[in-house]
């Protein structure tokens, strides 16, 4: 008992000493679309290098999921979405500061198939073949890539016929995973995602007929680190941020 109370006292002391340290360190939480995962993981340390004392942590998921978390009061400072519609919802509900919103990257929707034992798919129209049993797409209610896919398939007049084959994923990275594992014979992801698993998936073609894939970013209204958040937003559009994004295959907005 004595030892226990001593241990408790000691941990309280350590905790008490650490508290002010935590309070003065500037921590920035960035909620970013899943497709930005690899690029942002590299941007994070580079941004920190220019801001002594600041740390950036990332929360990657489908944009629709992220805005939902922010709606429910998640402590987020910066929101980077993979589509305009989700960011638009954020602006409408005053969850983000509209004047900080800007586009910082663009992407291309592509059709991918597993690299191993590739199914006979050489163009979009081949998806109707019986050899293609499952097609992975993002859930269109919450995953931007799913919405782009739906628009593209609808303008190609293929949505209704392909719908029974569709498998819905929680994020673009899950679509990629389904195709890479060969569990789905085809899927729709961004070109930058396909590049991450270039050994496991093969790009068949770029897909047209959807709203342009442009990534907006904005400072979250409830952020307590607005100055740092603005700096991060600016960093994305700056030379260094753009160079990293370009290296991961993102186009300029």
């Amino acid at each position: 008992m004595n030892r226990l109370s001593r241990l408790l006292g000691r941990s309280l002391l350590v905790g008490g000493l650490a508290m002010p340290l935590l309070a003065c360190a500037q921590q920035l939480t960035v909620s970013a679309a899943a497709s930005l995962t690899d690029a942002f993981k590299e941007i994070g340390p580079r941004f920190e290098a220019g801001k002594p004392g600041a740390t950036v942590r990332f929360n990657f998921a489908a944009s629709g999921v992220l805005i939902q978390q922010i709606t429910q009061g998640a402590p987020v400072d910066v929101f980077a979405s993979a589509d305009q519609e989700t960011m638009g919802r954020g602006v409408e509900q005053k969850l983000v500061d509209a004047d900080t919103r800007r586009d910082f990257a663009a992407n291309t929707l592509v059709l991918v198939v597993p690299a191993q034992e590739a199914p006979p798919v050489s163009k979009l129209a081949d998806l109707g073949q019986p050899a293609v049993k499952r097609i992975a797409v993002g859930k269109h209610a919450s995953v931007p890539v799913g919405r782009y896919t739906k628009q593209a398939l609808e303008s190609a007049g293929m949505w209704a016929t392909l719908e029974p084959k569709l498998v819905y994923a929680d994020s673009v990275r899950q679509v990629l995973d389904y195709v890479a594992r060969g569990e789905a014979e085809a899927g729709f992801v961004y070109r930058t995602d396909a590049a991450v698993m270039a050994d496991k998936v093969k790009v068949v073609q770029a897909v047209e007929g959807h709203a342009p894939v442009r990534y907006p970013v904005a400072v979250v209204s409830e952020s307590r680190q607005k100055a740092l958040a603005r700096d991060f937003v600016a960093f994305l559009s700056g030379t260094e941020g753009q160079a990293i994004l370009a290296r991961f295959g993102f186009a300029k907005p």
Partner: protein
Amino acid sequence: MIADFDAHPLLLSLQVATIATLLALVAGMALGWVFARHHFFGSSVLEAVCMLPLVLPPTVLGYGILMAMGRRSALGAWLREHFDYTIVFNWHGAVVASALVALPLVLKSASAAFGNVDRTLEAAARTLRQSRWSVFVRVTLPLAWPGILAGALLAFARAMGEFGASLMVAGSIPKHTQTLSMAIYDAVQAGQDDYALLLVTITSLLSIVILVASNRFFSLR
């Protein structure tokens, strides 16, 4: 809101949980009997292995099922080649996942129930020239069934609630593999809080009914 209610996820959950519980019941009773009556080299380790799904994260289970039965696995490739069958993106995947998480609950209660049966009653039946099977069916099982049934109900409730492993294996395909717990997840993700609340209420009420029933059987012992 009620008008929008789609009964499919609820029905699928009931269907998956029922089949999974039956599978877990058969396997759990057999294993429970073995572990209650026989101690052999490694039996406690084997029992621990059977109990693993109770404590492992569902993601481990999902990964395991994908590795064992996914398309790139030996079994998955064979099933696909010979029967054009795959467990992935199929509600059967949810059954496998649910049966695995339900198994420990049946196993533990069956093992306890068999262990509590008075062995002298079985011995008495044997002196009356009953075969081993007949003793099991006419003496042991009637004495042990309330405990087993209580365990099976718990297993059913657990199977109804399976989410992680099922999602990884069966996916969340509306009208095909989307169970109640997945429908809740989708509704929350899509910001349909009202609909999520409706589904959560249904799930909670159903679980309470099952747990109350399970308690009744446990107190019957």
